[in-house]
């Protein structure tokens, strides 16, 4: 394994316990059965017949939801899907404001790419997908009139305004009209544009709460029309996107979710698959602000190897005992660490660190910050200690202390993160 890649992964995992968006397969454990079903049944299955699907991902904080979503993203790239990973939050991207959700999707849209390196900012967003679309077509059509003809015959989308906008952006690139291109892309990103610009490109709609769903469907239809298999939408931290004050807002957010669930399955979302990750479905579906039983019933069925049509993917039930899971994860982390620092950890001490930390993390911290994340951060910390002091004695007492300090640190980091974003 590349030393720099290994070091980048160790650095990211060791600091916060959250996975980096690259090199995820180097420390993936236990997800294989779920991923195989998702690949066989959906990415390489019904989505290729222009159908669509919705899955609810549940798993505790630090239980691997983001990891799972990144893994799905990489699988999807391999099957020629565009992907948008959107981290929901109450201010920038709350689920009760679909126009902001669309904005989040447009800003995070990525065309298929290798997954072993971070995505550069210029490769992210609807602008880069339009540019890539233009560049790819330019290579296929050596003459301008042929390219123009291609554009004219491009299937239209549900929203004519959206269709006109993407054609306008493409035409702007063809004509090397940078300003014109930027104007239309501004609208595609969900930002306000001048009336003159809209008139010029025959865009009659604004992207607001009344049109956001139609524009989102149109985005999916366009991605499909320009040659990709479809679009995979990965919504993370969904409980935060719902943490809104009033009952009315909550209802609107749940209505949007219900509509999205209901839309999946019909032909208006060709090749689309939506993954919506929450720590506990009850955070979303229960509580004092009203309960949407109709939605609850839609999201109730459990997905597994024998029931691929189930909606709820529970990452707490991977079919591996926690001890075995942490044992396998620990071994992969050790390999990563050794590759990152081009060294060999002393076998006996490495195994003792992994065994002790796994044992205590499961028995004493099962209901804390998420024993998986806690284990990852603590193991890497212990490995660093072992690297600095090869003769280090690491017993239960040291392990307990490390896990306790790490719990407090992760809780503090999470708290600061939430406060920073919301206020």
């Amino acid at each position, binding site marked *: 394994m590349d030393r720099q890649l290994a070091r980048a992964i160790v650095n990211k995992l060791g600091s916060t316990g959250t996975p980096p968006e690259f090199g995820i397969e180097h420390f993936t454990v236990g997800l294989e059965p779920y991923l195989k079903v998702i690949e066989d049944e959906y990415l390489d299955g019904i989505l290729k017949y222009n159908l669509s699907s919705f899955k609810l991902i549940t798993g*505790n*904080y630090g239980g691997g939801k983001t990891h799972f979503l990144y893994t799905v993203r990489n699988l999807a790239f391999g099957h020629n899907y565009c992907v948008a990973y959107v981290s929901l939050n109450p201010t920038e991207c709350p689920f009760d404001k679909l126009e902001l959700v669309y904005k989040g999707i447009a800003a995070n849209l990525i065309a298929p790419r290798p997954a072993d390196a971070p995505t550069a900012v210029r490769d992210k967003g609807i602008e880069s997908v339009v540019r890539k679309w233009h560049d790819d077509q330019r290579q296929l059509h050596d003459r301008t009139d042929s390219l123009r003809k291609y554009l004219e015959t491009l299937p239209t989308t549900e929203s004519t305004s959206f269709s006109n906008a993407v054609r306008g952006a493409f035409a702007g690139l063809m004509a090397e009209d940078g300003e014109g291109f930027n104007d239309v892309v501004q609208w595609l990103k969900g930002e306000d544009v001048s009336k003159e610009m809209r008139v010029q490109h025959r865009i009659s709609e604004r992207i607001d709460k009344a049109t956001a769903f139609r524009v989102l469907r149109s985005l999916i239809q366009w991605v499909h029309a320009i040659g990709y298999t479809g679009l995979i939408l990965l919504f993370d931290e969904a409980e935060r996107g719902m943490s809104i004050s009033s*009952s009315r807002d909550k*209802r609107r957010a*749940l209505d949007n979710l219900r509509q999205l669930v209901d839309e999946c399955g019909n032909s208006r979302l060709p090749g689309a698959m939506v993954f919506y990750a929450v*720590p*506990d479905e*009850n955070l979303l579906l*229960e*509580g*004092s*602000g*009203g*309960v*949407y*039983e*109709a939605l*609850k*019933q839609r999201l*109730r069925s459990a997905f597994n190897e024998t029931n691929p049509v189930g909606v709820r993917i529970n990452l*707490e039930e991977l079919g591996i005992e926690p001890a075995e899971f942490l044992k396998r994860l620990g071994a992969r982390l050790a390999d990563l660490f050794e590759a990152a620092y081009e060294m060999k950890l002393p076998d006996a001490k490495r195994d003792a660190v992994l065994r002790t930390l796994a044992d205590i993390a499961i*028995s*004493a*911290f*099962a*209901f*804390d*910050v*998420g024993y998986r994340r806690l284990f990852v951060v603590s193991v890497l910390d212990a490995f660093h200690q072992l690297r600095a002091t090869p003769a280090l004695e690491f017993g239960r007492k040291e392990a*307990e202390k490390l896990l*306790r300090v790490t*719990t*407090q640190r992760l809780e503090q980091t999470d708290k600061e993160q939430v406060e920073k974003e919301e206020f």
Partner: protein
Amino acid sequence: MEGLAELLQSLSDQSQRLVRRLAAYRDLLSDPVNNVHARAKAIAQLSGAIQAFPDSEVRQKLVEWHRNESAAIEQSRSEFRFEFGRQFVAGLEGSGMTVKGQLPLLRVGLFTVRVDFEAGSATIFWGPEIEKLKSGLALAPLELATTLRKWNERLRQKSVEPSKLAGRLHAAYRRFCGLEGLSEGTRVFLLDLLSELVLLMQPESFRLNPAQEKFVEYPRVRFSYDLFRLKQAGAFSVGEVQLKLHVANFDATTEKAKALWVPDSEEGDGTHYSYISFSK
């Protein structure tokens, strides 16, 4: 001489108060980790008394002791939290109740426990934070586990047999429809029926003398649990008519009078129902 006696008396009073508090605090140190929240409360109260003590070498020593003890309390808090999950699960072993979720919110079978490590208290709910059963409980993992076991067992023991409940519900439904001039088959709020049901459940002694001590209570939580048992047993038939529960809409779920949460499984999943009806 003037005022000196009063000053000494005041100093003596303050000293004695402090001595009493310090003695009480020393008792708490017999189990420093499990008494951590009581220690935190006591140390906060001691802070004022120490500050009010006249500036002297004694006060300096008290201030230093207070500072060290406050740091020790933080350490004990961390140890308490470390032990909490393990002890709680151990206390529930063999109860059949599964524990899910993450602190500070745990799902324990059909109950939810919200813990507050800062305040050292816990609140127990029926279902997912639906019906608050008790708040301000001491944050003692084994005691909490015992309370939950007890409530869980009591619900089972006092549960009305499903077919008997269906019969009583039908009787209450007919009575309510008769009083309100509604035809059979009409949907009736579950909570409207609950009061009729409670009346039907009263013993003969209550009919003869409707005094408080003769009254047999039937709280919402037991009604909810018994409906769960009824659903599990599939006891929906009463003679020729069929009992039907109607799912609540979004707005109704925010009103206690319009919806009742009923478990779907022992793991704590459930559904809000608003109405009940009987029809052929």
